[in-house]
């Protein structure tokens, strides 16, 4: 029987197997940030152990950083102390840190690929559930807890049980106004927020092959939102072209050697998955979420399900609870509903292509007077590129506020929050209760749909604005 892409990478990284237990999996790259690493460093110090492979770790500060005046000391004392602890820990242990003010700083899942740290065939972990993003390059990449961060510090390995495998084939061509974010929101709405729990997902099919690397990252990023351990896509010419020439990428002969290895990274024809799904790209419309988990999404032209349409009592209660929080009614359409905030950013949609997409719609136009629009680039590099391309002028002319790189209002750890009771169309990945601030009401959508709402001040089908 043939091997899947996942099998091939997994097999390359098994150090040993514990009888009746997990495998010892070797980790090529470990990404760390300020929020989920301090307790792991403390654990190592308590054990009196050095970090086993510091040169395989890359650190940045992203979750807890302000997006204004990054050259000044962080005002919030706890945030400042946490960022300082990362600086101290990295210095003590010889770990490369792209901290605040460094030209390579940014959201950990944006800078990894951008710097070429992320390469096909690797195993990559980070104390962050959106580590699945890196799967876009044909890697096994997944989020871990802080105890596991400490395990990788101690041994460059993790004990892992091999997950089940699912393949989602998306065939055909996307309709105008539909982008990668809509694909993944469509999939999650179809299989629910827990539908892929226990699985690693390979995304395949012509619609995936036609996507850029940044679009592929958006899809893999949200694998966790359906419960999947991770998601991955077979590397191809698009992948190689993206990686080539980046600072950490192999060069010269090493590039040729690696590339020929990477070309072997695909699922064999006769490989068998535990579960396989097929989706027709033409069926996907611009998507939006109405509830308090990413599975509660629909096409923007649809209405929120009615309570009568649900048979299961628990599901009914969940819908009621969510809609009470969101201030919405079962059966209602969202089109035309006023929104007060638009957030464009996060490890899902803060890359240069996302910003270009937004700029393409808003160029020469002004935002609606009642909406506040925040654009937070994923990295310093994305911000530089945006300025070089003049996107910053387009945004400021439109009345959008372009900030400095960080996780920002995706999780509201810094000052960037949505006030209680107000609505935000967000390009981020989670619409959980309180995610963007206590009482904040989040509707997840693509950068295009977010930009459309910024212009009209209400939930809008972006296709009505496309000429």
């Amino acid at each position, binding site marked *: 029987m043939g091997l899947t892409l996942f099998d091939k990478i997994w097999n390359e990284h098994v*150090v*040993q197997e514990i009888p*009746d*237990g*997990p495998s*010892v999996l*070797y980790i090529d790259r470990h990404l760390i940030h300020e*929020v*989920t690493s301090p*307790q792991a460093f*403390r654990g190592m110090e308590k054990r009196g*152990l050095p970090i*086993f492979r510091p040169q395989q770790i890359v650190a940045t500060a992203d*979750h*807890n950083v302000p997006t204004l005046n990054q050259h000044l000391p962080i005002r*919030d004392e*706890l*945030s400042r*102390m*946490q960022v300082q602890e990362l600086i101290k820990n990295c210095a003590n242990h010889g770990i490369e840190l792209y901290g605040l003010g460094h030209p390579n700083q940014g959201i950990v899942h944006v800078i990894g690929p951008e710097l070429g740290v992320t390469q096909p065939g690797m195993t990559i972990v980070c*104390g*962050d*559930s959106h580590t699945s993003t890196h799967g876009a390059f044909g890697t096994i990449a997944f*989020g*871990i*807890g*802080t*105890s*596991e961060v*400490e*395990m990788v510090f*101690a*041994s460059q*390995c*993790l*004990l892992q049980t091999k*997950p089940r495998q699912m393949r989602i084939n998306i065939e055909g061509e996307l309709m105008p106004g539909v982008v990668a974010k809509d694909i993944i929101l469509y999939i999650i709405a179809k299989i629910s*927020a*827990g539908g892929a*729990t*226990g699985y690693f997902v390979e995304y395949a099919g012509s619609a995936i092959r036609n996507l850029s690397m940044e679009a592929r990252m958006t899809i893999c990023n949200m694998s*966790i939102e359906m*419960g999947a*351990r991770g998601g991955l896509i077979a590397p191809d010419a698009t992948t190689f072209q993206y990686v080539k020439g980046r600072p950490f990428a192999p060069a010269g002969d090493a590039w040729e050697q690696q590339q020929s290895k990477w070309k072997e990274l695909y699922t064999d024809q006769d490989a068998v998955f535990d579960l396989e799904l097929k989706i027709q790209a033409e069926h996907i419309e611009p998507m939006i979420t109405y509830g308090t*988990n990413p*599975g509660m999404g629909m096409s923007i032209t649809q209405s929120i399900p009615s309570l009568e349409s649900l048979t299961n009592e*628990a*599901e009914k*209660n*969940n819908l009621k*609870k969510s809609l009470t929080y969101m201030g919405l009614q079962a059966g209602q359409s969202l089109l035309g509903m006023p929104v007060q905030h638009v957030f464009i950013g996060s490890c899902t949609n803060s890359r240069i292509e996302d910003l270009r997409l937004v700029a393409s719609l808003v160029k020469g136009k002004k935002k609606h007077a009642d909406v506040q629009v925040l654009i937070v680039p994923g990295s310093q590099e994305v911000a530089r590129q945006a300025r070089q391309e003049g996107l910053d002028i387009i945004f400021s002319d439109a009345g959008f506020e372009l900030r400095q790189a960080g996780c920002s209002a995706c*999780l*509201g*750890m810094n000052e960037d929050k949505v006030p209680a009771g107000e609505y935000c169309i967000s390009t981020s990945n*989670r619409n*959980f*209760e*309180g*995610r963007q601030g*206590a009482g904040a009401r989040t509707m997840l959508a693509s950068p295009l749909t977010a930009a459309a709402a910024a212009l009209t001040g209400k939930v809008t089908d972006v296709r009505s604005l496309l000429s």
Partner: protein
Amino acid sequence: MESLKEIRSRFVPLPVENIDTDQIIPARFLKATTRDGFGKNLFRDWRYMNNDEQQPIQSFILNQQHHGGEILVAGKNFGCGSSREHAAWALKDYGFKAVVSSFFADIFKNNALNNGVLPVKVSDAFLAGIFSLDADDQLHIDVAAQTITQVSTGAQEIFDINPYKKTCLLNGYDDIDYLISIRPAIEQFEASRI
């Protein structure tokens, strides 16, 4: 890690599905650099009005005096979302030794086990049975036998746990000790890849 062999306790029922780790511990409490003290902020925004400890939300189960115990019982897909281990630390610090649900998000499950908090996966029917018990009824969880029992009715189910993780839990071992012990094999593996 402390060993965990059995738990006999009342339980706290929270029949809500898809409880994400942002609810268990909101992001604004993740600024700490130690593992301690998260229990007071467990389910913070479900527990208190306007983030004010003087304004407990009476309808929320942790604020109801007649419920208590070392076992939290919740709807399916418990612990979804963020990988923050702070969720497991908050549950443990509050006093929970086990969480029972009909399924758990993967990262949470690992985080819980790595902190000696046992995730017990039961069938939908067994979960519904627990939710119909009285507040004084107890559950008995036996790690070695892998059983969970509703003490008043005698209803029992066997739960799954990886044999390796079971040994760790019964003896209080953690993965790090094991991984450090095989460093020579890891170095050999590294050398073989060059």
